[in-house]
């Protein structure tokens, strides 16, 4: 049988499994409850929680971009390990507190918490709009990954638009029917599959192409300039400041992604802490993924690739002898990686639209109406991301990139809400606006960044100065003071 036929069969089998699991996850649960749809009635178990959070870092970025970074940027790829290892740590501190507040006051989103603390609808709508734009950007990346994998592994027999439509269509349907539970349970399958595929593939490539890890890195050292495997040298891809500030921004920003933040509402304090405990393991699981990229150095000629993200598909089609089984396994693994992120993000975006954008503008909505808005949003956000991934749109992409980088700017308001009683509404709103603006300017418009620092960090500095400065300058209203005390003490 032709390899691409086997690949289609294997990917179809995987898709059927993922679909069935996603649909079954919601069985026997209330279809018409916002609490069930958004936060699984605050009752997700530990096992599911691990994979739900783990699945988010094993995205199309990790599966295609991780090897691509190692192959083209060398040591800068260690950033991915540091990011994955550090990103969830702050959750150990804020997660239990957010969970307590959420259960007591019936929150479902980050916007709910900020609205209650700062009593500002403007703040919530800004957070909602920035989040939804960033989600669309994130989703567009995943859908592009899905489409690309389908196209390469079926040797062009499935057109790009169709592969993405089928795989992502399945995600949209199970998110609509099963809410967060659908995303969570299919993530268990997807994360395990992707891990197994990545490890097997990495072990095979490293030994087949180089005969071991040691000889592989010796070959890298011969092939590349001497600074390739360190940070900040003349031949390095990243300066010391750029590398360090990117890690700091990722660490602060990771939990500010609304779809991750709201997971605090889906479980208990104990399970949050146990999830954080297991997370460094997920970072270690990424080590073999980077090996795939290092193994390609000296094997894959740089001018054979349009972009470094294609290094893994190139290795598969050129170095693995065109075995159908391997095509199929890798196809399923890559789909799993992209879909496990896509479902969580689609779900998060739909909750943000319903709860943080539409609800503040139209208060007194019934539960059922709000849920309908969320389910319609799944389709709309999905369609927008699909359109952008397949057909593109230059102007919009800039805007979306800016939003993507702006997520970390929620951090001062959120940490302020939890730990600082003197913060005020005005300070939070202005800080956020200035932070988003500064980030946008340095990320997209400026030619150079001061000290080569990450745009998000520059935005954060401006954000914190404005938030703290305005809050201290203007005496808080009695209302602000009361809410501040209530949040910090809970």
């Amino acid at each position, binding site marked *: 049988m032709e390899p691409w036929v086997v690949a289609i069969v294997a990917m179809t089998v995987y898709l059927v499994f993922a679909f069935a699991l996603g649909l079954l996850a919601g069985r026997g649960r209330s279809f018409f409850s916002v609490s069930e749809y958004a936060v699984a009635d605050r009752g997700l178990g530990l096992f599911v929680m691990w994979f739900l959070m783990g699945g988010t870092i094993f995205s199309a970025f990790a599966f295609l971009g991780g090897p691509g970074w190692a192959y083209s940027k060398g040591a800068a790829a260690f950033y991915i*390990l540091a990011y994955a*290892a550090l990103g969830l740590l702050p959750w150990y501190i804020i997660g239990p507190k957010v969970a307590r507040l959420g259960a007591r006051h019936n929150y479902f989103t980050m916007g709910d918490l900020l609205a209650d603390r700062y009593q500002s609808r403007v703040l919530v709508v800004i957070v909602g709009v920035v989040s939804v734009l960033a989600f669309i950007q994130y989703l567009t990346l995943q859908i592009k990954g899905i489409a690309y994998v389908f196209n390469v592994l079926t040797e062009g027999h499935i057109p790009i638009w169709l592969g993405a439509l089928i795989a992502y269509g399945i995600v949209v349907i199970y998110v609509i029917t099963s809410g967060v539970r659908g995303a969570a349970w299919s993530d268990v399958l997807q994360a395990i599959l992707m891990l197994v595929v990545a490890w097997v593939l990495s072990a095979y490539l490293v030994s087949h192409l180089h005969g071991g890890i040691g000889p*592989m890195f010796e070959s890298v050292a011969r092939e590349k300039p001497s600074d390739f495997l360190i940070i900040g040298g003349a031949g390095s891809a990243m300066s010391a400041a750029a*590398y360090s500030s990117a890690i700091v921004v990722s660490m602060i920003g990771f939990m500010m992604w609304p779809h991750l933040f709201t997971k605090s509402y889906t479980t208990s304090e104990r399970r949050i*802490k146990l999830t954080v405990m297991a997370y460094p393991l997920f970072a270690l699981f990424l080590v073999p993924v980077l090996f795939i990229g290092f193994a390609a150095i000296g094997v894959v000629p740089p001018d054979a690739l349009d972009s470094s993200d294609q290094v893994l598909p190139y290795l598969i089609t050129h170095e693995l002898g065109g075995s159908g089984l391997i095509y199929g396994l890798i196809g399923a693994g890559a789909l799993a990686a992209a879909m496990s992120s896509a479902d969580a993000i689609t779900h998060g975006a739909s909750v943000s639209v319903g709860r943080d954008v539409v609800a503040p503008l139209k208060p007194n909505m019934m539960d059922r109406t709000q849920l309908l808005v969320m389910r319609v949003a799944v389709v709309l956000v999905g369609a927008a991301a699909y359109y952008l991934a397949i057909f593109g749109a230059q102007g919009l992409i800039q805007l979306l990139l800016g939003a993507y980088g702006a997520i970390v700017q929620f951090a001062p308001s959120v940490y302020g809400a939890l*730990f600082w009683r003197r913060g005020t509404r005005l300070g939070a709103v202005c800080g956020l606006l200035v932070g988003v603006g500064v980030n946008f300017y340095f990320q997209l418009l400026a030619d150079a960044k001061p000290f080569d620092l990450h745009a998000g960090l520059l935005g954060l500095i401006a954000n914190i100065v404005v938030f703290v400065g305005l809050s201290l300058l203007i005496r808080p209203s009695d209302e602000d003071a009361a809410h501040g005390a209530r949040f910090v003490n809970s």
Partner: protein
Amino acid sequence: MAESEGTTGDLGGRRVATRAFVLFIIAIALVMIFPIYGLGNRVEPYVFGIPFSMFWVVFWIIVEFFAVIAFFLYEHGGETK
């Protein structure tokens, strides 16, 4: 901070180490970034075939893993469930 008196009732008198955990987060982040990462930022010696700049990151991730387990056991170890 979270370990203020107001919360001890909810937590059933459990041991909490929030402040120590915050310090731990800062410490583990610092070893991953410059200037401290500069100590590990070299190709040689290779450890298990891995360049030292990568081994440094992996080593501290392993340390982090056991440290978080230690924190959890300190805070929740005495609980029956």
